[in-house]
């Protein structure tokens, strides 16, 4: 029994870590939504695209080489250089800023004042578009991403917990790094939002577009900036997830992990995204643990329920929303006529 408790604690801790990763993706959503009211479904594809770009730059891949070769009969693939990770990250950030500018200039400038649901569907279109472009640009094979992050079991925690409980806990080094990065990222964002001129303008826009406009804030600039920051957050998420599984198509599906986090935490709240992520992470891991450990659920249902993680978060969020439609930290909705 005590052992079960340790197991549950281990699962709980790992759930927290997974939650941090979900929150990292959700953070990008919140930023854009707060500033522009756009629920950006393409955030997951942005993570994929930025990770692809990062690997592409690091390995000196020629963009669109496949289509160039097919059209002109050439045989070019690589520039033949290798860029250190830090420079490549910098290059990728530039690409993401460019992307933000394009998105703002050619899409959302034309959709100002549309209903949120229209904007949402536009971002689904954007997701498809970007996915196609990413494939055309960098190819669709799996790429190994190594920016030097540690991975694997953390021995210190394993040993310490073993000495304490007689059972060593498993915590992934990558998860620890991700947590640290996420914390730094949030602190950075808060500092940026509170103390920099641009950040204050951003918050002003989030509060009230019209008012911000009337005191001379350039909406266009703010929106490009917000998309750029979201692109940066996507890159961070892309690095974390890509390190684990290699950079490939499925990376874009992490957006699906972030949606219930947002529903739970509210679309406008950064703390909401983090708490929501943690709740979902812990919830789905513990649920899976209790359902699939045969001793517990087997007696209840006669069969074990497993592989629940795809829907658990959604159902949890759904049930939660029915009782609190604005999410955990969202502002209360007052209806008026």
């Amino acid at each position, binding site marked *: 029994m005590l052992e079960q408790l340790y*197991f549950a604690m*281990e*699962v709980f801790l*790992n759930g927290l*870590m*997974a939650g941090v990763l979900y929150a990292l993706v959700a953070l990008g959503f919140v930023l854009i939504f707060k500033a522009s009211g756009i629920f950006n479904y393409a955030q997951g594809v942005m993570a994929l695209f930025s990770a692809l770009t990062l690997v592409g730059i690091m390995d000196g891949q020629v963009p669109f080489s*496949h289509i160039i*070769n*097919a*059209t*002109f*009969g050439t*045989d070019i*693939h690589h520039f033949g250089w290798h860029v250190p990770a830090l420079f490549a990250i910098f290059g990728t950030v530039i690409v993401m800023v460019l992307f933000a500018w394009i998105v703002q200039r050619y899409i959302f400038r034309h959709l100002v004042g549309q209903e949120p649901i229209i904007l949402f569907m536009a971002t689904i279109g954007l997701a498809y578009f970007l996915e196609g472009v990413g*494939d055309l640009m960098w190819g*669709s*094979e*799996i790429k*190994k*991403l*190594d920016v030097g992050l540690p*991975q*694997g*079991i953390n021995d210190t925690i394993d040993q310490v917990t073993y000495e304490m409980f007689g059972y060593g806990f*498993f915590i*992934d080094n990558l998860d620890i790094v991700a947590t640290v990065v996420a914390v730094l990222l949030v602190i950075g964002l808060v500092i940026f939002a509170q103390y920099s001129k641009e950040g204050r303008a951003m918050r002003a826009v989030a509060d009230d577009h019209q008012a911000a406009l009337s005191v001379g804030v350039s909406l266009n600039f703010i929106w490009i900036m917000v998309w750029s920051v979201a692109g940066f957050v996507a890159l961070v998420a892309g690095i974390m*997830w890509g390190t*684990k*599984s*290699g950079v*490939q*198509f*499925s*990376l874009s*599906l*992490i957006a699906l*992990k972030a949606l219930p986090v947002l529903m739970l935490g509210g679309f406008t709240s950064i703390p909401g995204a983090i708490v929501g992520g943690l709740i979902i992470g812990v919830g*789905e*891991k513990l649920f*899976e*643990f209790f359902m*699939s*450990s045969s001793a517990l659920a087997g007696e209840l249902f006669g069969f074990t329920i*497993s*592989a*629940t*993680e*795809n829907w658990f978060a959604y159902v949890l969020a759904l049930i939660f929303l029915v009782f609190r439609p604005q999410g955990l930290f969202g502002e209360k909705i007052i209806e008026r006529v």
Partner: protein
Amino acid sequence: MKMKLPAMALSALMIASPVMADLVFPSLSYRTGPYAAGGIPFADGYADYFTMLNARDGGIGGVEARVLECETGYNTEKGVECYESTKGEGALVYQPLSTGITYQLIPKATADGIAIHSMGYGRTSAANGKVFSNVFNYPANYWNGASGAINYLMSQGDISGKKVALVYHNSAYGKEPIRTLEELSAKHGYDLTLIPVDHPGQEQKSQWLQIRREKPDYVIMYGWGVMNQVAVQEAANIRFNMENFIGIWWSGSENDVLPAGEKANGYKALTFHGVGDDFPVFDDIKEHVVDAGNAAGAGDQIGTVLYNRGLYAAMLAAEAVKTAQEIHGVADINAAQMRDGMEALEITEDKMAALGLPGFGPSFKVSCENHGGPGLVGMTQWDAAAKEWTLISDFSPSDMDLIQPLIDEDSMAYAAENKIEPSC
């Protein structure tokens, strides 16, 4: 299918020109979508082998082979569309390359009299040629794979009382080995734990924590796509001994182990064909295909596991064509003759050596009753330092005594449901 601009114009002309006698091999590839990384090398290998035959031998038996590539994106509907659009071209044999599409095409292709070769995937019980007249899944199927893995473990030591965990893609494909492994567990006395991973498998912490808790002695994996890479990575993270971690052949390509780097060293995977590019045939491929600028893909996949699998599939198809040409005495065979050729196919060591593929696959013989071959499977192991797979066992038999009744049971159920009169 690299094309230069003039060649493009030429091909446009060729479409307009009258159809010449050729042997059509549709390739339902998936170079896009979630499984693109697996689909690309297979399609490359499949196409390159025929390109090589055309360039080196002037086709098969003097008739040019034509590969019709059609992109499915691993999507069932696209698969149907591809089937319908290519079958009119005189398609000889289909490689559906997806379990879903295979299931779809089984009745359709049977009605149309075209053969399907689902090599190492698809409907396992299609091995029963009495029921599935037009479906072939030689040389090995999923149940052979499961049995082969257990056989391999038994060759390493006593397995009774040991714990075996099956980590599987929670889909039709992943569920395939469960029955076999259960029967085998009853027979050999090991404990089986089932651990499903839902599509896509990006996040498997729960599953691997469970493995860490329950400490199985061996883990067998039926995974696909991103699930493979994450599983290998997570196994490395929890320091699961890679020696005791065995993947099915769809979980045993370079794609699956490279992202984990050094830590994937020692990981094993089943196979039914050779690995590496240390075969004479690759010299021909280099000479006639790559250097001539006719490689299907970027040319960087040659010698990878899935490229070899595509090449192997093409080789088996070409050999079946030769067999059919012998049986019927015509060079430009049709689909029905192709089916006869596949049913009479015999692969021997000598044949493979003559093709420049000595020891590349098991020797086997197809018959009217048995479309699945003898079910010989081998084991490969990943050497992370050298970045290559090595074959570490012979192609050895699986437990057909146990599998055959399962095949019969499932196929007869299908026959009853669809009112098929078993032939042969």
